[in-house]
Every structure is written in structure tokens, then in C-alpha cells.
């Protein structure tokens, strides 16, 4: 996301850009999209031992209108797919999507008719976190890598 669309490019807007990206990463509110087992690990990441609050992310917004980040944690069934898309559409820009776990990334161990084989068939994904389920450290690594990519201007 860039403010260069409205102003001519110069040194001032470059550093404002950088400041804007810094602000986006420093308190990124996740939207609650815990679907299955990965949701437990997501809750563990927000809990005391592996604390998401140190990154300003402990407040999982129930309303997608107030969220920046959608962590798709778990299996997405065929019936849930339009709901997922609607929640994603309701999030305001700038927004990012983390596909957490094997089921959200590729359909996981459930290669069948009932589940969407990878959530990237429905929403654009910025970060895939492997695991079944990924431990809190794995999810944290994914979130922090996403922060680094946003700071570098790549996401």
C-alpha cells in the first residue's frame, strides 16, 4: 500500500511510506477465523507462554471491518468457502491473509470432495505456515516473516 498515488514521488513520501508500513506491522489486528484444530494452536499463540500481545496482536477482532489480518486456521469446507470470501471482502484495505496449517494451504490430509484444496483458491494468500498443526513458534515465525515482508515493501 502506498500513498504515492496521490502525491508526486520524492524523499518525503518515501519516508512517510516507510512510516506507514511500520505502523501497519506494529499493531496488526487479526480477525477470528479459527475453523478447526489449528484454532487451538492459534489460541495458544495468543496465550501466556507464546504471547502475541508483545506484537500488539492479542486483540482478535470479531468484526472483519476492524481487522487487518485474516489467519485462516483450519479446514475450509465447501459450505464455508463463500462465508470465508465474504469475511475477506468485508475487511478494509490494507489486508493480509495467513494460511495456517496444512489444510488451509493445500487441503492437508483431506484430499476429498468436502474440503477446498487450499484456501488460495478463494482468497489471495500472503504467507503459508506449514504444520499439522503448526506449533505456536511456527505461527509466530510466519507472522513475523509477514511483518518483515511488509516492512520491506513486498506485501
Amino acid at each position: 500500500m502506498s500513498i504515492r498515488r496521490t502525491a508526486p514521488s520524492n524523499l518525503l513520501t518515501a519516508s512517510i511510506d516507510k512510516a506507514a508500513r511500520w505502523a501497519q506491522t506494529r499493531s496488526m489486528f487479526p480477525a477470528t477465523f479459527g475453523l478447526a484444530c489449528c484454532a487451538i494452536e492459534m489460541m495458544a499463540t495468543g496465550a501466556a507462554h507464546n504471547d502475541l500481545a508483545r506484537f500488539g496482536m492479542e486483540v482478535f477482532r470479531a468484526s472483519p471491518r476492524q481487522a487487518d489480518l485474516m489467519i485462516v486456521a483450519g479446514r475450509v469446507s465447501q459450505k464455508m468457502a463463500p462465508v470465508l470470501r465474504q469475511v475477506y471482502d468485508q475487511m478494509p484495505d490494507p489486508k493480509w491473509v495467513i494460511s495456517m496449517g496444512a489444510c488451509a494451504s493445500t487441503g492437508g490430509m483431506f484430499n476429498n470432495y468436502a474440503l477446498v484444496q487450499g484456501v488460495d483458491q478463494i482468497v489471495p494468500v500472503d504467507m503459508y505456515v506449514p504444520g499439522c498443526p503448526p506449533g505456536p513458534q511456527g505461527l509466530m515465525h510466519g507472522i513475523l516473516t509477514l511483518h518483515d515482508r511488509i516492512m520491506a515493501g513486498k506485501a
Partner: protein
Amino acid sequence: MSPDPLEGLKERFTELDWHLSHGQEVVRVEREQLLEFATAAQEAGFDMLADVTAVDWYRSREPRFDVVINLLSMSHRARLRILVGLARDDTVVPSLVPLWPGANFAEREVFDFFGIVFEGHPDLTRILMPDDWDGFPLRKDYDTGAVPVQFKASHKVS
């Protein structure tokens, strides 16, 4: 309420096929007799319907489908399983919702996955698959819908 509900039912319906399965009483009932038998079972003391499910025997047996109804008597601590056989082209069976309202969702699930129609059900629609889904997933001739996957260690390309 004191007599054993199973004893009373066995005396009244001796001509039915009763057998024991892992310590639980099982009875096979024809579809036409199901409502009469179920009403008698409820009056005898089977006040809870635990589950309604189905089995697809596919080619290994005629009739193709078995509807399995699990009853529980909380006051007598007795369980009963009822099997209703259905042919492959005639999958209609009376609904037990008028007797036990808890059968509502269980029968919807059986309809969603096996295509067995329950006559007299107040709202027989799909419950787990999307409403416009084609086909009945738990029938044995329904494909799993697997997507071909290339694994790193395998040599052939699927």
C-alpha cells in the same frame, strides 16, 4: 414402568428377527411395520432416540441400504437397535420425528449422505453439504473426489 421393555416387545413381536450383537439387542423390521414397532417401543419405555444412521452394502448384499435406529431407555438402562432394509431403487422410509423430535437432524444427515427419503419429515434438506450439492457422498459408488498429488519421493508423475 417396571417391566423390562425388551421382554414386552419380544413377546409382542416374536415373528421378527431378534439377535444379539456384542451384547446389544438388535431387531430387523420391515419398512411397513416400522411405525407400529417404534410406537410400541416408545410405549414400552424407550424414551430416547440416540441416533439414526445408515449403511450402504452396495453389491455385497440385497437390500442395498440398512437404516439403523438406536433407541435408549433411560429409566430401564436398556438399548435397542432397529435395522430397516431398503432396496436400491426404493429408498423411502417413514420418519420418526413425530415420535422422537430428536430424530430431525439425524434423518437430515442420512438424507444428505445416502439419499434416503424420510416420509413425514418436516424439513428434509441437506444439512452438512451445501444446499445445491449433486449426489450422495457416503454411497459406495460416490467417488472420494481426490485431487492427484505428486509427492517428492515418487518416481511417476500422477
